[in-house]
């Protein structure tokens, strides 16, 4: 007779208590039979499941939310069903690496969604426009002159702007032949819609952020946007898990950002207030500073993200 399920569960609970941690619990055990050397042997398989908690305080209302993400099975422990001995226990470092990976996947999904949803808002960031001024120059010059002759290939100037030329060609905003670039029909359309160079530039930036952000980062080494995306995404990650546009204090938002992105650094903390200021500028409008000095998101962005991001694996929210 194999040992009973209750016994295995108690044993698993004791192991978790001693070795793994309070966020872990046993799932439903399964009794299996394996045949080896013509002998049948029974085993209990007990899944190790994890709940990851998050506490969010709304600074405007003073309410606290305790959110639990049920991330599901991390691993499994096999018990000899005759003697009740665990055959092999997973390393704690392995379990924590799996939780980290799961959380990172959620973070990446939120980030991609945020980039897609708020790309036009991000395109209005002054710092981005400043960093991408060669790209703006190329757009303006090619539209004004209809055909813009690039500087000589050997020149420093050309080497500096070449990556922006490549990016515009990649995204099909200009046509490049020898040393000349011309606006593509798409770029003409964008410009003619409002007869406004700034609008055309913002639309190009929006497209690049939305569709080529990773290329921008990896291939062109243009990383100016990175902290803005991470900080905004941290806010919307928390808001989505709370299922509400919560108002986070600067400190709580910093904690969220530094925790989600492992971004603990004096330099980042020093610049954090300024990033928030830029993200809340009137045109950008990704965050808004409330009267109590807390940060709230943009309802249109949040509602759109919420539609496209059904909460998965979340066990529940307790509001106090």
């Amino acid at each position, binding site marked *: 007779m194999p040992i009973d399920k209750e016994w295995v569960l108690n044993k698993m609970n004791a192991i978790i208590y001693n070795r793994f941690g309070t966020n872990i619990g046993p799932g439903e055990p399964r009794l299996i039979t394996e045949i080896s050397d013509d002998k049948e042997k029974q085993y209990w398989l007990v899944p190790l499941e994890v709940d990851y908690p998050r506490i969010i305080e709304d600074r405007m209302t003073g309410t606290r939310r305790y959110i639990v993400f049920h991330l599901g099975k991390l691993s499994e422990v096999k018990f000899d069903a005759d003697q009740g001995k665990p055959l092999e226990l997973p390393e704690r470092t392995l379990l*924590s690496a799996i939780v980290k990976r799961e959380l990172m996947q959620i973070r990446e999904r939120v980030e991609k969604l945020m980039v897609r949803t708020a790309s036009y808002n991000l395109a209005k960031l002054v710092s981005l426009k400043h960093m991408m001024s060669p790209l703006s120059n190329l757009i303006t010059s090619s539209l004004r002159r209809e055909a813009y002759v690039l500087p000589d290939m050997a020149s420093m100037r050309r080497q500096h702007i070449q990556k922006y030329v490549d990016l515009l060609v990649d995204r099909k905003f200009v046509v490049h032949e020898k040393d000349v670039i011309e606006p593509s029909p798409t770029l003409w359309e964008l410009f003619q819609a409002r007869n406004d160079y700034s609008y055309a530039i913002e639309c190009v930036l929006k497209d690049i952020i939305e569709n080529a952000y990773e290329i921008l980062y990896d291939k062109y080494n243009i990383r100016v946007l990175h902290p803005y995306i991470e900080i905004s995404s941290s806010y919307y990650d928390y808001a989505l898990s709370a299922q509400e546009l919560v108002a986070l204090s600067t400190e709580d938002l910093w904690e969220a950002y530094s925790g989600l992105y492992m971004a603990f650094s004096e330099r980042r903390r020093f610049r954090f207030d300024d990033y928030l200021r830029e993200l809340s500028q009137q045109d950008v409008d990704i965050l808004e500073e409330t009267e109590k000095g807390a940060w709230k998101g943009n309802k249109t962005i949040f509602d759109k993200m919420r539609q496209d991001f059904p909460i998965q694996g979340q*066990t529940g929210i307790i509001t106090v």
Partner: protein
Amino acid sequence: MTASAHMVLNYLHGKFPFSSPPPSFDDFREILPSSDILLGTPPNKIRDYLKRIEQIGGNLRIRHLKGHDISTLELRIRQNTPPIALFDLMYYHTRSPLSRSSHATVVVGYTDEVLYANNPVYGPKYPYVKERFKEAWERRGMKYILITPKESLVRYISTT
């Protein structure tokens, strides 16, 4: 778990002063391995963590116990040894059977209807309805932890 242990440390320092005050919670957290943030602290490791704090190392007794009823927790409160109870918080609030984690809370008082807990999430005197708390506590094996000064220390302090 660690927040609850830290609360008990502060409580004990008020009753039986250590040679120097316990560390701040942020300093206490520095002791923990990073995996505790993701997996939670294994309750059985609390003794090791407390030992690492120089000023209290070795002066505390940590007991892992199992209650049989809410009256067990009430007795500990009357004995001035606030217990850290491990229970299913999500089940307490939502009756959801999906939750797997254990939540630790320091039980600090009681009435006929409720237990008061110093809860890291909800604040210093959060009322839990006894009957529901019992069910949520049962789901985690009615376990609780007592952190008390070692007998010798209590005797030493009471004679000085």
